[in-house]
């Protein structure tokens, strides 16, 4: 398989390089794709694009890395204002409401597909994923591409050193706490850390326990939504984490994915992270590890429900020629084909976004060979999503996340009471929602 792949990549490189050398003899229609992937993920998306280019000779897709998610979105917006937008822009889930509100700037995926007469079945996509990017009328606006959900990673060596069963998989937060205390007692300097604190410990906490993060079905039913993550369970959960910080169980490592390095280097024994962190952990960690479900609170009836996704989708930008959109449609079809998605899922830890890709991965026996890799998809699809666990669609969400980060940091520093901090985050976040409501009107 690896051999075949390297042969393929050589062939791909030649296929890409040759036409360029000939001097672009035949005029191909160029399709610009702006994405936010560097490093290993960047290589993988480049490979997908190269394979597509090799598979046909009418269109040439050009992928460009535009910085992190926020920077890529900004580059897209700035380019649109200058009338130089790409055909396809990768936008993270947090930017979904912003893109949806920009009616004249985007071209909905279902429309692109219909106009290009490209076969397209929205039901082929996992409901839990597609729902995030679909309107109330069932129209898919952007193409799901890389979606992940939050899972827990445990360092087996660290567990063994602490005299614990290396196979332990704590199911609930109290169980995890017991384990962390033992790790601490055995001398671990960092029993626990987390990436994306707002996403994991407030947004997913809400969905996982069927609690609203915001009213109006987390914003799916309108922009007049209000944040409500200052409920009893949220306060209880954040109080527990604050206690952990105080007792040296939880080491705070930053707002986004930076704390992942603490786990990969072996410093932290347990981490809650995106399932897409799998590729990085597998590549860098010099110790055996387990991937397991996000813990839940056992006293909540019916818990655990399902977790929600993070990641990004592909948006088609308005303002290009009709024949270019035909190429865009062909590229989107290629990107969601079972083979491409299954490979992507297996390489990265992102969810397979179509049922076909999931089935294909099962057939290939990937889950048996790599235990833990199906945790994310089972956790996402284990139960039918409720109004609270379909996803979150808020305007100014990036700024709201920053507000939450700021308030949580005040809690970790011991400067602020948990309830006061969450109340403040809700109040400040609501102001941002009102501003968005006004601009989106």
């Amino acid at each position, binding site marked *: 398989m690896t051999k075949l792949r390297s042969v393929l990549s050589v062939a791909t490189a030649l296929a890409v390089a040759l036409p360029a050398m000939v001097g672009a003899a035949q005029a191909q229609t160029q399709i610009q794709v702006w994405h936010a992937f560097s490093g290993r993920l960047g290589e993988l998306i480049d490979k997908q694009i190269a394979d597509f280019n090799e598979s046909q000779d009418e269109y040439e897709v050009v992928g460009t890395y535009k910085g992190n998610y*926020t920077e890529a979105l900004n580059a897209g917006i700035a380019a649109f204002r200058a009338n130089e937008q790409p055909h396809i822009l990768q936008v993270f889930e947090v930017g979904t409401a912003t893109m949806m509100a920009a009616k004249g700037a985007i071209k909905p995926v279902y429309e692109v597909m219909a106009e290009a007469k490209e076969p397209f079945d929205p039901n082929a996509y996992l409901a839990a994923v597609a729902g995030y990017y679909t309107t109330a009328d069932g129209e898919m606006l952007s193409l799901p591409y890389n979606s992940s959900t939050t899972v827990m990673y445990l360092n087996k060596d660290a567990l063994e050193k602490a005299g614990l069963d290396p196979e332990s998989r704590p199911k609930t937060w109290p169980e995890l706490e017991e384990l962390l205390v033992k790790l601490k007692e055995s001398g671990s300097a960092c029993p626990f850390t987390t990436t994306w604190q707002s996403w994991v410990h407030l947004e997913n906490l809400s969905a996982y326990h069927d609690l609203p993060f915001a009213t109006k079905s987390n914003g799916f039913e309108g922009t007049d939504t209000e944040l409500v993550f200052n409920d009893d369970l949220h306060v209880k959960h954040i109080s527990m984490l604050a206690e952990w910080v105080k007792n040296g169980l939880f080491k705070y*490592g930053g707002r986004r994915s930076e704390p992942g390095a603490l786990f990969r280097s072996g410093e932290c024994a347990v981490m809650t992270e995106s399932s897409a962190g799998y590729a990085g952990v597998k590549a860098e960690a010099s110790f055996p590890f387990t991937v397991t479900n996000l813990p839940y609170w056992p006293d909540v009836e019916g818990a655990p429900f399902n977790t929600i996704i993070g990641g990004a989708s592909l948006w088609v930008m308005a303002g290009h020629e009709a024949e270019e959109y035909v190429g865009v449609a062909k590229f989107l079809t290629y990107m969601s084909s079972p083979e491409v998605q299954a490979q992507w899922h297996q390489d990265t830890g992102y969810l397979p976004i179509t049922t076909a890709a999931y089935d294909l991965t099962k057939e290939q026996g990937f889950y048996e060979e790599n235990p833990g890799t199906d945790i994310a998809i089972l956790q996402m699809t284990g139960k039918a999503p409720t109004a609270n666990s379909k996803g979150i669609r808020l305007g100014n969400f990036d700024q709201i996340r920053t507000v939450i980060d700021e*308030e949580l940091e005040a809690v970790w*520093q011991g400067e602020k009471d948990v309830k006061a901090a969450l109340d403040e985050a809700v109040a*400040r976040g609501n102001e941002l929602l009102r501003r968005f409501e*006004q601009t989106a009107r």
Partner: protein
Amino acid sequence: MEKRVTFDNRLLPYLLLLPQLLVTIVFFFWPAGQALYQSLLLPDPFGLGAQFVWFSNFEYLAGDRYYLQSFVTTAVFTFFVTLVSMSAALLLAAMADQVIKGAGTYKTLLIWPYAVAPAVAGVMWLFMFQPSIGVLAFYMKAAGFNWNPILNSTHAMTLVIAAAAWKQISYNFLFFLAGMQAIPRSLIEAAAIDGAGKWHRFRTIIFPLLSPTTFFLLVVNIVYAFFETFGIIHTMTSGGPGQSTNILVYKVFSDGFVGQDLGSSAAQSVILMVVVGLLTFIQFRYIERRVHY
């Protein structure tokens, strides 16, 4: 009596002024006017439409206590950046002024940091002081100091001040050194013959004679700390922990270019423009009087 040069041609003086005026209009008045206009709008990020909202962007800011807090943060940041970078530069300049052998090498080396872009400076300092991977953070920990700029506001503030000040030292050094070399040697030698020690000479002759340079640098450094440091903040702390390093200009940047709230961002830049204008006015009105040219 001053001698005045007069032009015979009435048009010529305006023609000669024109290039400078054009530059000022295109690069200052026009963007400033745009900012002023935008601050009254509530646009959507894509520029598809905008509502005229009068002063509601300003009202929104006035009601945001974190915005008011940001003024205090900026004041602290600016004060320390200016103080640290100017005093360090003065010390280095005073020493370089006395070096005879290899003076050129020292001077060149000291000027280098100025060529480093703020964002790059931020990343370099972060590499040294990042609690998990930083070399210096490692030694600080080994020495028993619990260094944690990710969660400790004071540590974070110290770090960004150090990085911002370090970058500006070169610039200040250059001006201080030039200022010192412009002081007539005879004055200093005369004082030395009269028995004044090094410190005494510095305090009573060099420092007062440097005052035009010091004043100029004060204005420049304050403007630097206000406007040019967002790259450092962005790469090092993103304004955190909490909002403890969220200075005004970083908030303009993050609200506008991260949050896509262009109306609020424009309103903030207008406020910032007024604040810096006022500060410079005060400096020229009150401090400049004490400057001997």
